[in-house]
């Protein structure tokens, strides 16, 4: 059975061009870039070229502001802990309730260590309130860390505006954004629309580079102490022998993203929109999570009321379709996704979410297949649901009362 991969917000396949670019550095060009002999110098130059290219992708003229890490989680840790270490006098951090755990849990760790953390909520579409954001800024605010695009819903936060408000309020407040889901999908110009951003994290495997490579942009002059201490690599800001092939791969992946950017975004948006529209037409009682907010072009998070997501994923996988869900049963805990709960998704729908996320390697045929299969999967489970009236294909008239009952 062929696989339809619609879980690209989880990870993406490595682009063949990226594989090709990396290959020499896994074989012949194996030298440690810190070594003195001639072949090692070539390796070091390859890294420099990659760094320059990545800096160029973000319109930066100083490549040293790009730091290579092992993943976005490391970048986020390095950014948040690094800033905290550099300015111990300030003890307040602002973040949102819908961050990825790589930010949320780091903030909670600061909280356990005596920091005051504001977790900004979102409305039912997933939007932040700029007024609430402004009110959260304080004289002792150290850091604002707000994601660019949400991994579950695809909702995009107005980083441009939030960073500007932060800097206009107090230029000493550091602004960090986790752009793991948006790099390559949304325009990011660190001299232009993102000029007020001090720190930006992302990783390679969300944009067709391999897992195990991430990057952190640190604007020149930003007080941020090293997180991984060791050798003099990365200007002493991140120890550890450079992951040469993966750095080359990351640069190649960004080059590909830039080359096809507009076509790709149009293709992704058209597939996603068609899927959303058709599913909304064919399945009663669904909710598009984040549908009312600006969103990534590739992400559809759809909840079907009165059924549970894990059983949907299982049936999808029986058809070779890979997707994910925010239901409690897929999270390993008893609670459904913290993102959907922050959106106040009704509890009749919070367990029934499925996320489809596309990449440039998806085709309209993939969308057709999902459209063919998914409505039946929903119907299958609704036939079993105690809250569904199968004769009328609608919630039972007494569903509201039934869901109120417990045990």
């Amino acid at each position, binding site marked *: 059975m062929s696989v339809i991969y619609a879980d690209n917000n989880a990870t993406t396949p490595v682009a063949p061009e990226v594989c090709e670019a990396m290959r020499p550095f896994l074989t012949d060009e194996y030298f440690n870039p810190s070594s003195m002999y001639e072949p090692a110098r070539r390796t070091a130059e390859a890294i420099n070229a990659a760094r320059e290219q990545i800096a160029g992708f973000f319109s930066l003229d100083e490549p040293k502001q790009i730091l290579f890490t092992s993943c976005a989680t490391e970048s986020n840790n390095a950014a948040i802990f690094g800033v905290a270490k550099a300015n111990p006098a300030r003890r307040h951090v602002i973040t949102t309730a819908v961050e990825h755990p790589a930010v949320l849990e780091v903030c909670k760790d600061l909280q356990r260590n005596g920091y005051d953390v504001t977790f900004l909520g979102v409305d039912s579409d997933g939007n932040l309130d700029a007024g609430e954001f402004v009110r959260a800024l304080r004289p002792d605010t150290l850091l604002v860390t707000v994601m660019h695009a949400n991994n579950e819903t695809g909702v995009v936060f107005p980083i441009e505006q939030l960073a500007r408000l932060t800097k206009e309020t107090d230029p000493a407040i550091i602004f960090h954004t986790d752009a793991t889901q948006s790099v390559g999908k949304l325009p990011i110009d660190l001299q232009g629309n993102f000029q007020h951003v001090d720190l930006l994290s992302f990783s390679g495997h969300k944009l067709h580079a391999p897992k195990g490579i991430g990057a952190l942009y640190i604007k020149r002059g930003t007080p941020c102490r090293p997180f991984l201490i060791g050798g003099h690599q990365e200007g002493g800001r991140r120890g550890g022998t450079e992951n040469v092939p993966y750095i080359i791969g990351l640069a190649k992946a960004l080059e590909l993203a830039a080359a096809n950017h507009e076509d790709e975004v149009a293709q992704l948006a058209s597939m996603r929109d068609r899927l959303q529209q058709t599913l909304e037409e064919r399945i009663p009682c669904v909710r598009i999570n984040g549908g009312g907010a600006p969103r990534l072009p590739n992400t559809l998070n759809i909840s079907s009321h009165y059924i549970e997501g894990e059983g949907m994923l299982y049936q999808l996988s029986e058809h070779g379709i890979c997707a994910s869900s925010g239901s409690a049963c897929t999270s390993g805990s008893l609670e459904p996704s913290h993102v959907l709960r922050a959106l106040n998704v009704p509890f009749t729908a919070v367990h029934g979410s499925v996320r489809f996320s596309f990449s440039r390697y998806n085709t309209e045929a993939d969308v057709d297949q999902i459209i063919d299969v998914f409505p039946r999967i929903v119907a299958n489970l609704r036939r079993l649901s*105690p809250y569904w009236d199968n004769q009328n294909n609608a919630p039972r008239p007494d569903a509201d009362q039934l869901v109120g009952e417990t045990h």
Partner: protein
Amino acid sequence: MAWEYSEKTKQLFMDAVHGKPGTHMGEIEDPDGLGEHGSISCGDALRFTFRVKRHPEDPTKDVITTARYLTFGCTSAIAASEALCALIEQGHHTPIGALEIRNEDIVDYLDGLPEQKIHCSVMGAEALEAAVFNWAKRRGVDVSLLGLDVSAEEQEEGRLVCKCFSLSETYIKRKIKELDLRSIPDITNAIKAGGACMSCHHTPGGLQDLLDEVRGRDGNGAELKILHQVDVPGTESQPRSQTDTQQRSALSPYQFGKQVERAIEENVRPMLQRDGGDMEIVDIKDTLIYCRLGGSCEGCAGAGKTLKMLVERTLKDRVDERIRVIQI
């Protein structure tokens, strides 16, 4: 987390969703026994019904002939419901005899369940028990014959506050004290209460009330925002409408806000409205004024300039030279 289901579990689930003959999906109309367990907010819920072949004289000798379920839940919850019905029908049990079926039997029937899915089998056993109680009531059978510890059911530790995770008032209050929980998110993080449907947060007798009760209404001071005294030197910052005999060294945040408000009402808003525009103050922090422009100003290319030239200049002149206006 990938699936770790047994082949049996997967098979039962797929048979059920495809409505294969021999599966037990459905609901018996006017059943002899009906039991429910779980809730949609917990992530799984089961409605279980059965029909008996009635014994003409002794209801305790009724035999269950048909068992049906409707389940909201994951793959294993649905498979466990199938297992429950199959076990009951195959055993030709009396309702009282059916109580012998424990959740372990359901797990065995499924060739095992992943640890974090054991609650699916518990749900089956609980719904069965509830249905047998229901049958006993309908048939006039003395529940004490069922060999169940009925009192355990009744010995609830006080009123249920978080219904999703079945947590009582007594328990939550004890934990607020023991774990020094200061807010609803604290409670949710610590003991999960209020973490699913969230309906118990602010209802009377809900989590906020329990917090207030245990900690005192302003016990944690979390709601109190610290405002900074705005230190405005008396001389040039005096509003021009006031006489200069009145010398003040500082304005309280309230007075400062009032003056900003008044300057806007008197000098700024009328001018904006003349062009179909409007503005609102979103927040004031010290001498930073956060504004949102509305009406025809919204999206206007000259909006930033308007704010600086008109709003900021006016406020600097009338209230305090240090004022800066920031556009939201």
